[in-house]
């Protein structure tokens, strides 16, 4: 391990989390806005569209959660 690995970790781990959050926000925003447009076009299909939207959002969130877990693991190594 290089000498100042803790400083490196302290810089990059929150940055990685921020990038994951931004990317996930973009993806989720597109998914939810498409779902809202679909519901507004056909309100009687609202239940099905809502279910599909929830599943899509869970799949997109999963990628962000992967980053979060790595952040937790690495964050334990900071701090002497």
């Amino acid at each position: 391990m290089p000498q100042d690995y803790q400083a490196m970790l302290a810089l990059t781990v929150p940055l990685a989390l921020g990038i994951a959050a931004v990317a996930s926000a973009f993806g989720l925003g597109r998914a939810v806005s498409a779902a809202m447009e679909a519901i507004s076009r056909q309100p009687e299909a609202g239940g099905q569209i809502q279910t599909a939207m929830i599943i899509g959002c869970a799949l997109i969130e999963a990628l962000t959660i992967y980053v979060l877990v790595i952040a937790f693991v690495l964050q334990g190594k900071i701090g002497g």
Partner: protein
Amino acid sequence: MAVDAAHADGGIPELPNVITLLSHSLHDHPVVAWLHHWEHVLFALIVIAGLCAGAWRFARKPSLIPRDGQNLLELFVEGLDRLLRSLMGSSGRRHLPFIGTLFLYIWCMNLTSLLPGMKPPTSSLNTTVGLALVVFCYVQVVRVKDLGWRQYLDHLAGSPRFDDVKQASMAMKPLLLVIKLFVMAVLLVLELIGELVKPISLSLRLGFNIFAEDVLLAVLVGLGIAAGAALHLPIGLPLQLFAAPLVLIFSTVQALVFALLTTVYISLIAPHDAHPPHEAHA
């Protein structure tokens, strides 16, 4: 207790549960150490015992007009039945026991993160990968039973047809055959790896989500205790209640996603059988 909350390996905060409390007071007892090693299995067994007790109490003598617990159970079963029928057609009803059990089991396991003194078993990858292996075996067995070995392997290899090889000129035949066999082999390997990876992704998604919820609760509990100490209260502030709606929603959503993706994997086959994937609601 605030010290214990920050005590887990790697410095990741984790809430103390019944077994860690035991192991803090009785350090060197071998039984307690063994319990601590297998704590996720123990909590899974507790959830199973709870579910079996509920089923025994409410579903033993089903009456025609349901009341109390039987009503609740029928709510779940009928809701899942409707969901499966809308996804897989009426032939999908035979998968209802498996997928319903999966959903209820994972949902109850996720919800134990809110009970004080318990740790959700799905927060460790051991439980979730076990579930994913069960799903993998079930999906493969269903496919082989429905299609038969030969047709299943044929489908995995991309349904190759050798008509163009038969109609080619004598010079081109060996070349075409070799290319076709090579593509078949590559497709087979890729599809088999894909079949394995899909349940693994299910398990990682579930495990990491519940683990993140657990850590969120632990961090909020630590914050609450620090705030209580700063305000000189005898107990900490219950700040983790702010995260409770999030935990409730995400527990349900993750269980639903697991069950629904299993349904989708089961129904991914059968393009040859030509049964319509969507039927009208009953």
